[in-house]
């Protein structure tokens, strides 16, 4: 252990002891909490604390994953278990004086022993019980703007260990042993990817962290950034050490103020504490990191478009080869990882690659970080071991649909297409998912019940793909446009039977000739909808009606169709 790390750890513990002696109030202030009204709750609590003259530490925390229960307030009296109150409103604030288990304000869950009778432990909640939290180990538990709390929970220990006890090759070896595959969508082996960059002899190399996460229904990258940004920084540092890179970019769309602000603070703290910059922890390792903000562009999440965007250019994908490991950002060798991937790394290094590989199933080790939204009882962010079935995720964790039956799931972003209700038994596993015609992708799962029209949903997904096509390669630029025009015709019941074939022709062209994944997968939503719900399309064309009635309203979807 380095002296520098030891000093950081000691001061973090000291800080922790001070905190423990006070009343701790944490308010969930991630996007989900803020949307549900946590600003007002926070203000009311601060007001109460002052009014009642309490010696309390009120902190903003990120998202615990129980988005359905936001605004979520977590109160801990000194020496007592933590109490989680869900759906708090300014008018029904929990008592800050004492623990009450009766009346209106019953805690949702507790954490710590002894618990409270009649109140479940946090990890026994139906949404939590099957979760295994590795990347999400700290979310909702620590103040993302407080480096001490991260370190007190073992943060930066893995970095310290790697820098002092492991060679870069050993780090890569552990990552390879873990079987970790990229969580951004392509599921490429992370260790192998790192070894590509390691083998480059260039003096200037980059680690890029992709937090663009433009998929509708995906919010776990932003969730990690606004709940536990230091995990990412530690992951980047480890990636940098392993591959010999000394620069890092965290790439995120502008406007996500919470994640951006907290990551920015975390980077500044890391610089101040000697965890970034020159001679990190006194070991001679140098690493600089900064955030790179981009305008609204879905395609900028594509790795080469992302590099163009970092360079300040229009986010349009480059051709490959050369691959990023040879010619990346600024023309220098680069490695690009998703946030979720990097968030696993500190734990993999601390506990060993073997430990990680034992979680999950063969070929897909570790956990899946999923975002549940749509027609579901308990929307939120969960981390479950690979191999769990979709049904378990949707029905046990998510609580199923509130009304009617599940009609389909939309997984892995718009390009992932849909998964019919008959495929709910599919396991969370890269191979099983792709066999079922879907992708795990970024982990977003949107649940739809029977009130949703498959044609209309397809039109929406294609409208998204079309709107977000960067306009570079002809098959994607024109193919998505024609697909959307055809689908709009269908939804207006102006379509003719040959349109079904026409979509296939356009789709095949896009899949075979497009430059990047956006165009290559752009037909997926249509193809998968046709596979599961071909009959509905037929009814729209031949009978001119929509069973659910959702096609009869005017479109308000933004599109960039031809003028």
């Amino acid at each position: 252990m380095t002296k520098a790390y030891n000093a950081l750890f000691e001061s973090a513990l000291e800080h922790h002891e001070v905190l423990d002696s006070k009343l701790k109030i944490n308010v969930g202030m991630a996007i989900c909490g803020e949307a549900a009204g946590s600003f007002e709750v926070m203000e009311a609590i601060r007001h109460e604390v002052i009014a009642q003259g309490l010696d309390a530490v009120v902190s903003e925390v990120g998202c615990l994953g129980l988005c359905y229960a936001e605004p979520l307030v977590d109160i801990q009296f000194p020496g007592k278990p933590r109490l989680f109150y869900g759906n708090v409103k300014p008018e029904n604030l929990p008592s800050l004086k004492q623990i009450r288990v009766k009346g209106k304000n019953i805690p949702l869950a507790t954490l710590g022993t002894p618990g409270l009778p009649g109140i479940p432990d946090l990890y026994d909640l139906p949404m939590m019980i099957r979760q295994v939290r590795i990347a999400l180990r700290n979310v909702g538990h620590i103040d993302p703007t407080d480096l001490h709390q991260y370190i007190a929970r073992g943060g930066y220990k893995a970095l310290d260990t790697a820098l002092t006890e492991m060679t870069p090759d050993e780090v890569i070896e552990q990552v390879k042993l873990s079987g970790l595959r990229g969580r951004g969508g392509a599921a490429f082996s992370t260790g192998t990817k790192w070894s590509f960059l390691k083998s480059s002899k260039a003096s200037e190399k980059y680690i890029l962290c992709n937090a663009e996460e433009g998929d509708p229904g995906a919010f776990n990258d932003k969730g990690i950034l606004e709940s536990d940004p230091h995990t990412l920084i530690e992951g980047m540092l480890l990636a940098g050490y392993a591959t010999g890179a000394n620069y890092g970019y965290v790439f995120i769309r502008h406007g996500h103020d919470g994640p951006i602000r907290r990551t920015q603070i975390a980077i500044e703290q890391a610089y101040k504490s000697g965890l970034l910059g020159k001679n990190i922890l006194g070991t001679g390792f140098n690493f600089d990191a900064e955030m790179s903000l981009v305008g609204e562009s879905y395609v900028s999440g594509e790795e080469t478009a992302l590099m163009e965007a970092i360079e300040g250019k229009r986010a349009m994908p480059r051709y490959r080869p050369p691959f990023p490991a040879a010619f990346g950002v600024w023309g220098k060798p680069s490695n690009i990882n998703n946030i979720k991937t990097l968030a696993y790394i500190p734990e993999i290094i601390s506990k060993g690659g073997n430990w990680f590989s034992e979680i999950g199933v063969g070929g897909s080790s570790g956990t899946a970080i999923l975002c549940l939204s749509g027609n579901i009882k308990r929307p939120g962010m969960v981390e479950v071991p690979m191999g769990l079935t979709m049904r378990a995720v949707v029905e046990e964790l998510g609580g199923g649909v509130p009304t009617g039956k599940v009609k389909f799931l939309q997984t892995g972003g718009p390009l992932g297409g849909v998964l019919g209700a008959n495929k709910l038994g599919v396991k969370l596993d890269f191979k099983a998912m792709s066999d079922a015609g879907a992708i795990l992708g970024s982990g977003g799962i949107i649940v739809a019940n029977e009130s949703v029209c498959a044609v209309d949903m397809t039109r929406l997904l294609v409208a998204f793909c079309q709107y977000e096509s960067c306009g570079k390669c002809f098959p994607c630029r024109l193919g998505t446009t024609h697909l959307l025009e055809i689908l709009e015709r269908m939804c207006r019941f102006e379509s003719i039977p040959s349109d079904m074939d026409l979509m296939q022709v356009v789709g095949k062209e896009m899949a075979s000739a497009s430059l990047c994944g956006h165009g290559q997968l752009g037909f997926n939503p249509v193809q998968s909808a046709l596979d599961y719900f071909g009959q509905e399309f037929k009814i729209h064309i031949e009978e001119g009606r929509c069973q659910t009635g959702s096609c009869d309203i005017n479109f308000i979807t933004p599109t960039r169709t031809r003028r």
Partner: protein
Amino acid sequence: MVNQDRIRVVIDGTEVSVRPDAVVLEAAMEAGVYVPYLCYHPGMKPFAACRLCLVQEQVEVEVEREGGVVVEQQLRPATASCTLPVRDGMVIMTSTDNVRDLQHGVMDMLISEHPHGCLTCHRVELCGPQDICQRHVSVNDRCVTCPKNERCELKDSVRFLGMDLNSPLSYKTRGLDLQIADPFYDLDYNLCIVCGRCVRVCDEIRGDSAITFISRAGRSLVGTSRGTSLLQSGCEFCGACVDVCPVGALVEREHKWDKAVKVERTICPECPVGCQLNVEVNKREKLIRVIPEINAPANKGQACFKGKFGLEYVNHKEKLSQPLIRNQGELQAVSWDEALKYISEKLRLYKGEQFAAIASSSVTNESAYVFQKFARIAMNSNHVDTDANSRPSLTRALGKALGYPASTNPVWDLENSKCVMVIDANVTEEQNVVAVPIKKAVRARKTKLIVIDVREVELTHYADIWLQPRPFTTPYLLAGILRYVLDEGLADTPFIESKCEGFDDLYKSLERFTLEMVSGITGIEEDNISATAKLFATSGPSSIVYALDNIPDYLQEVNVNAITNLALVTGNIGKPFAGLYALQRGANQQGCLDVGCSPDLLPGYQKMDESPGQHAIQSVWGQRAPRMHGKNLRDILAGVKEGVIKSALLLGGKTNHWEEEFGESDEVLKKLDFLVVHDTFLGSVGKFADVVLPATTFAEEDGTYTNLERRIQILTKSIVSKKGNAQPAWSFISHLANEMNIPGFDYAHSSQIFEEIASVIPFYAGISHKRLIDESVVTLRPDPINPQPTQMLYSDRVSQGLQWPCFDLDDEGSIRLYQSGFPDHKALLFPLVLKLSPKPTNKEYPFLFIPGRVLAQWERDVEVIRIDGVNHIQREELLEVNPIDALDLTLNQGDPVEINGKGWHMSAAVFITERSYPGSVSMTTLFGEVATKAHLDTAKNARLDIHGLYIESVSVRKIDL
């Protein structure tokens, strides 16, 4: 280049060897196999957008079959060949069913937004614009009404692919307005296929980024990067985007629908870069379009607004067609015979010191040679110079120090220089294509750029370091840089010791140029001087590009000496990517000097004394030139003023090169007793000349130019005027000499003259017209009937020209000078003797006005207004004034002022800033104004007359509201 590095690829059964870093598309071209493409363009990085150039690779795969493993040939999925790197032994199929299907699919989608009604019509080549169409294709959607009809790559590709165009995809036009208010070219984005060639050439090659992609998906298109007009977006109107556009979206406005009957390769007459141009000529022998040659060594497919759009004067109906003689004050048309007889009679009276001859610097080598020979042996006068030679030291001082009075390296070496220093030169406007490799390299982060210029010229926006020395103090700054280089041990000592002479004297002369002293005189902070010295001396091979703009004549020689010294002490001479570039102005300034248009040097820079060179010339000429040195341009004018010189022969009446430096030269020339002008138009000088002779334009003659790289390139007679009797200079001078009974002027063709030039100039000895023509290589391998970018189509042969010195017929010329040492073994370092000049005081015009001009100033808003359908920039200009002067004049920020110069005045708003030196005021205007003016000039078929950026004395007065 090296053969053993090449690798083998099999394309459709043809084996071909290619560079290891080639892509499959290039290999296919090499193999003569055509692969259709729309976004790729040679010379630019691949873009991989159109997805037409698909190919399939055939690979051997082991497959398990009954009875064991067998090897099978399999085709891999189709990939774009423009980005597929070649591998040794690769087997490529370019026209499989799968590939063709996908290509048809892309094309179907593409023409769903491009008018295509004519494409499947059997009458496509027969139909006229106004014909009644039985297929009901509307006039706007017809190919025949598209100005690019003859060269449309989209149309050609559709036909190459043999498509029947029965796709059920719905067709929709964009319905956008045509953009026709900006200068020079029309934009019809209804025809755009968004291949991005224009955006990429503007960004990647030109470094301007004036246009960009706008919007996305179905609405993605090309537009300006700022504002709505190209005048606002930093466009330099080079026309590179027009040249690469595969469809009719971007087209030249003049002669928009004219069809070419022939295309000829010639050399641009506008500046010394020597751009090879392909000129399209229509059936009425008019030059209708200019397409820069893509395989040309000096310009690599680029040109500038002058070369691309400014040559319209060639077609002017007011070109002189007959000789004119002044009779009782009026010019009257006469025959050549009469004119020559008249001139010969008159000139007999002015032989010797009374006669002066001034050649236009855009005449050919042949004309210039015959011209000076005429002056010397027919008129017995050495008063010979060129009209652009107002700065004789520019190359002459180079010659004294190094051996040859010429730039050392080729222009495109600049792209690989590690550091480029540009000194007092307005490159982007005056030698435009020299700026292209600089901007390209800076934008690609390959090169550091230092600009030394008090004016804000375009390149300052690309500079890593921009030093603004006080007006007229550049040589002091260079001396300071030199001393710092030597003091800090940044010099290339082995180079100095082995290859230079005079170091001690130089070092002694630098003693007083301490950082402090230099900083005091130039106004540049000491840190910036040292940083500049370090950057230049330590970056690696570095180049210096210089003109002598605004350097007073008494400092010009020492300024060039300082530049040469800097290059020598840092060892940046005689190697690749380390060059000295003297930026002349006239297109053939170098050649004119080479062949002897110089008052004190004979052809080949031979001295007039009893040297062997002089004897050689004497034996060819049969007579020797006068011994006395003649007067140069400046002294000739003085001589005319004094009445010593009474008669003159002028080639080209375009005196704008010298007026700026010599003042009212027209008024001076009026004093001449007898003035003969040979010009294309009746210009300002012609209006008072005694005889005006009609001159051919560059497009109507053959001959050679020598560019600033010492490259001799051949001009082609592209236009044959049906009427008119214009003659090139060499032709009428020969006749005149014959009329005067002077022997030695029996020339039937310009190539004969060049043979004589080669016989008297040793470093031209290996060059001949025949060699220049014969050594051009045929390059176009794919069948020219296939769809090609226009630039590829026209580049059927590559002509490198020959760079002197080229001593014999086996000599391939010298790409770079001094690579194997200096002609006199050592280069000379000249001590820098600099006298502080008294500050000129002028009570009437107390301020120095420093003009600047750039493509764009992003920090300021620009308004564009439309007058008579033409866009003009309208904005209030800012006059930068030092706070001290502002105090004196009681000016406040934003006050309106009037600036008065000699013969002009303008108003502006005051911007008080420390950036301006006390006693000087500066103003930076936008190039867009020049572009609009140039556009209006060309619309009138007039020659472009771009006002240079000269420092002048002005007065500044507050306007009281």
